[in-house]
C-alpha cells in the first residue's frame, strides 16, 4: 500500500522539478538598448546598427556565421555543396519551414529575395546606399531555383567568402507574400523566417519582436524582445541601472568596473574584434603626403588613448586585422606604435612648414570626442595644428561618403567572421572614396590584386600568406592609422543568461538562445 503511494509521490515530485526547470528558462521580455534605430528595416539600405540588431533577430539567411568558431553554419539551407572550381554552390533548402506570415519557404522565394536588389521590376525594389550590401551579387553569373527545394548559385569568379556573405542581413530571405503585399514598405513590415517575429516597428525609435512559435530551430526562450533607441550613453546607462533596459552593448566604458561589482548587472568583456582607426585622405592635402600620414601614426600614444579614452577596453593594434580575425599578423605592432621623435622626422621629411594644419572629424557621441581631444594633444605635440570637427552621426557619414574628410576617426567591426569583410570595404577600389580615397594610393592596384587573390582561394595556407601581405602593404601606405582593437563590453541584467558574447561584441547578435533566470 505504501509502495504505490511512494511511487506516485516520486512521479509528482519529478514532474514538478521538470516543470520548475522549464519555467526558469521560458518566458519574459528582454529590453535591449541601442544607440540608434533606422527609419526603415529595408536590409539593402544602411541605417545603423539598431536596424541590424532587429534584422538579425527577425531575419534568417541560407547560412549563419558562427562568431566563435568563425565558420559558416547551416541556416535556411540545411546543406550545400561547392563545385571543385569553386564557382557553383548548390543549396538544399530546409523543408517544412514557414515564414512568419505562414507562407512556405521555397526555392523561388530564396531566389526572389536575393535578386530583388538588382531587379527594378520587383514590387519592393528601392534605391539606396549600400543597396547590394556585400552579399556578393556583383559576382553572380546566375541564381536559380533548380527544383522546389534546391537553389543553385553560379559565380563569375571563385569567392571563398561567399558563404559568409550570405549571412549578412541583406541576404536574409524575405517572404514573397510580404514583398508582394507591402512592396517598398517592406522596410516597416519585415517578414522572414528568423526566431523572432516583428510585431511593431516605430521608425527611428523602437521595434517590438515576439517569439516565432514555428521557428524551425525551436521556439526561443524569450516571449518578447524590445529593441529601443536611446539618444546617448548617459541615458542608456540610466535605463540599465534602473532596470528599464536589461541588455546593451552601448553603455559607457567608464561604468564597466563599477557595474562589474554590482549586484544587479553583469558585464562581460568581448574579444578584440573591432578596429579603431583614423582614416587619412589620400586626396586632400596635407594627408595626401605619406610622410604626414606616417607622422600622424607615430605621434599617437595609443596606451594613453586606450586608458583615458576607452577606459582600457581595447588592445594595442597591429594592422587592419584584429587578433580574432583569420590571418591576423602581429608584426604590425612595431609600426602602429608611439614614437614622437620619428613623427617629427617624418614631418621634417615632408618639407611642409610647421605647424601643419589638419582637420580631424569625429562623431559627437560615445567615446569619439574624448579620443579626438587626446589625439589632438598628441598631434600638436609634434608639430600639427588640429581643428576638431565634431559632427552628428548623419553628417559624419554623409561627409565620409562624399570623401570630404581629411582625418577622421572611425571603427570597423567584424561584420562577418572573414578577413575579407574588413579588408575589402576599407581597401578595395570597388569601395572608392570614403575616408581615405585609397584608390589614389600608388600601390592601390597591387592591394586590389591581393584582395582578389584572398577571396579566389579557399586554401588556408595561401590565404594566410596573402593576408599577411595585405596587412604589411596597408601599413606601408598608411591610409589608416590604427589606434586599437576594441574589446566591447556587453552589459546585461543579472538574470539574463545565454548571451552570445562574441556575436554581441561584433554587433551581430541573435538572441534565440537567451533566457531569463527566474
Amino acid at each position: 500500500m505504501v509502495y504505490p503511494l511512494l511511487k506516485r509521490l516520486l512521479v509528482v515530485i519529478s514532474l514538478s522539478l521538470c516543470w520548475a526547470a522549464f519555467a526558469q528558462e521560458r518566458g519574459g521580455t528582454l529590453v535591449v538598448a541601442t544607440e540608434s534605430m533606422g527609419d526603415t528595416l529595408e536590409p539593402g539600405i544602411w541605417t545603423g546598427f539598431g536596424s541590424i540588431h532587429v534584422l538579425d533577430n527577425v531575419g534568417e539567411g541560407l547560412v549563419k556565421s558562427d562568431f566563435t568558431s568563425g565558420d559558416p553554419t547551416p541556416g535556411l539551407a540545411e546543406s550545400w555543396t561547392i563545385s571543385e572550381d569553386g564557382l557553383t554552390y548548390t543549396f538544399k533548402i530546409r523543408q517544412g519551414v514557414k515564414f512568419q506570415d505562414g507562407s512556405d519557404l521555397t526555392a523561388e522565394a530564396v531566389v526572389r529575395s536575393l535578386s530583388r536588389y538588382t531587379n527594378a521590376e520587383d514590387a519592393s525594389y528601392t534605391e539606396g546606399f549600400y543597396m547590394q550590401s556585400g552579399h556578393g551579387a556583383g559576382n553572380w553569373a546566375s541564381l536559380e531555383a533548380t527544383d522546389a527545394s534546391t537553389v543553385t548559385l553560379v559565380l563569375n569568379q571563385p569567392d571563398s567568402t561567399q558563404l559568409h556573405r550570405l549571412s549578412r542581413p541583406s541576404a536574409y530571405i524575405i517572404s514573397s507574400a510580404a514583398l508582394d503585399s507591402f512592396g517598398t514598405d517592406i522596410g516597416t513590415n519585415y517578414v522572414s523566417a528568423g526566431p523572432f517575429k516583428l510585431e511593431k516597428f516605430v521608425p527611428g525609435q523602437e521595434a517590438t519582436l515576439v517569439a516565432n512559435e514555428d521557428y524551425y530551430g525551436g521556439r526561443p526562450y524569450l516571449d518578447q524582445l524590445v529593441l529601443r533607441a536611446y539618444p546617448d550613453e548617459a541615458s542608456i546607462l540610466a535605463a540599465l541601472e534602473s532596470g528599464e533596459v536589461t541588455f546593451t552593448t552601448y553603455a559607457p566604458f567608464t561604468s564597466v568596473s563599477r557595474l562589474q561589482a554590482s549586484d544587479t548587472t553583469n558585464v562581460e568583456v568581448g574579444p578584440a574584434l573591432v578596429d579603431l582607426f583614423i582614416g587619412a585622405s589620400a586626396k586632400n592635402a596635407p594627408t595626401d603626403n605619406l610622410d604626414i600620414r606616417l607622422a600622424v601614426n607615430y605621434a599617437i600614444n595609443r596606451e594613453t588613448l586606450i586608458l583615458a579614452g576607452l577606459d582600457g577596453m581595447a588592445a594595442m593594434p597591429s594592422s587592419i586585422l584584429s587578433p580574432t580575425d583569420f590571418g591576423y599578423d602581429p608584426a604590425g605592432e612595431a609600426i602602429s606604435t608611439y614614437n614622437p621623435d620619428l613623427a617629427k622626422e617624418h614631418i621634417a621629411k615632408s618639407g611642409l612648414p610647421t605647424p601643419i594644419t589638419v582637420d580631424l572629424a569625429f562623431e559627437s557621441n560615445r567615446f569619439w570626442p574624448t579620443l579626438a581631444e587626446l589625439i589632438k594633444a598628441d598631434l600638436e605635440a609634434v608639430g600639427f595644428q588640429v581643428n576638431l570637427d565634431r559632427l552628428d552621426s548623419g553628417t559624419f557619414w554623409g561627409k565620409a561618403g562624399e570623401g570630404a574628410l581629411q582625418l577622421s576617426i572611425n571603427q570597423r567591426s567584424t561584420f562577418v567572421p572573414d578577413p575579407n569583410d574588413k579588408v575589402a570595404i576599407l581597401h578595395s577600389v570597388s569601395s572608392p572614396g570614403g575616408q581615405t580615397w585609397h584608390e589614389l594610393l600608388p600601390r592601390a592596384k597591387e592591394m586590389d590584386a591581393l584582395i582578389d587573390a584572398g577571396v579566389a582561394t579557399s586554401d588556408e595556407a595561401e590565404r594566410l600568406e596573402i593576408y599577411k601581405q595585405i596587412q604589411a602593404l596597408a601599413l606601408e601606405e598608411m591610409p589608416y592609422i590604427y589606434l586599437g582593437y576594441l574589446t566591447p563590453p556587453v552589459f546585461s541584467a543579472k538574470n539574463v543568461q545565454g548571451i552570445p558574447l562574441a556575436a554581441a561584441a561584433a554587433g551581430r547578435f541573435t538572441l534565440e538562445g537567451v533566457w531569463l533566470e527566474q
Partner: protein
Amino acid sequence: MVSSRQSTNVGTVSFGRVRRIWKKYDLAIVGGVFVMLILFCTIFAPLLTPYDPTVNDIKVRLQGPSLLHPFGTDQFGRDLLARVLYGGRPILLVSFLSVATALALGIAVGMSAAYWGGWLDSLLMRLMDVLLSFPSVLLAILIVAALGPGLSNVMVAITVSMIPIFSRLVRSVVVTLVNEDYVAAAKALGAVNARVIIRHIFPNMIPAIIIQASALLAVAIGTATALNFLGLGVEPPTPDWGLMVSDGQKLIFDAPHVPLFPGLVITLTVLSVNYIGDGLRDRLDPRLRGQG
C-alpha cells in the same frame, strides 16, 4: 544725550536703513555678491590656481575631490577647479558682449522705428517679428549652424536673437515719450532730432533698458552654455562650463563631480543674475517702487 537711533549709525548710513535695504533686496544682494565673486575668480584665475586647465595628466584621471584637487579631476586628469575658474571666461565674455551689442543695436532699431515711424517703423518691426517668431535658443542654433561653430559665431547668434527684444522695448517706450509735452516743446524751440533723443528721450528709457538687460543677461548665459554644450562654441581643450557638462554627462554615475561642479556654477550664476535683475526691477520700475 545720544538717541538710540544715533548710536546705531554706521558712518552716514543707519543700521536700520541697512536692515531695510537687506530685507527688501536680500536675494539681489546675494546674487550680486556671487556674480562679483565669479567675475573675480574668472578674471584672476591664473592667480587662484597653479594648474593649467588644458594640460592632461592621465595618471590622476577621474579622482574625486581632495586637498590637492578640491573639485577633483576630469577624464583627462585635468584639475576641475582650474577648469571651472577658467571655464567661465568664454561664457561670461560672450554673454556680456552679446547683451551690450544687442542693446546698442536694439536701441538704434527701436528708436528709429518709433521716432520716425511710417514705413520705416513697419519694415523694422516686421523684421523683428520674424526673428521673434523663433524660440531664441533655436534661432541661435540655426545661426551657428549656418555660420559654423566658434565663439564669435555664438556671440553673433545670441546678439541677433536678442536685438528684437530690445528694439521692441525701446520702441514702445519711445512711442510714448515722443508724445510727451516736453518733447513737443523741445521740438518747438528748435531742438534738432539728435538733441531731443539724447537729452529728452534717452534718459527716460534707461530704467526699462537696465531691467531688460539684466533679465536678458541670464538668458544669454543660458543660451551660450547651451550652444557650448552642443559643441557649437569653444573647441576643446579650452575650458568652458557648457562643454564640461556635455563631456561629463556620461560620467554622472561613475564620477559625478565631473559634470556636477560646472553644472552647479552655471545654475548659481544664472540664478544670481536673475536675482539681480529682480532687484533692479523692484528698485527702478515705477509701478513697483514703494512696494514691499
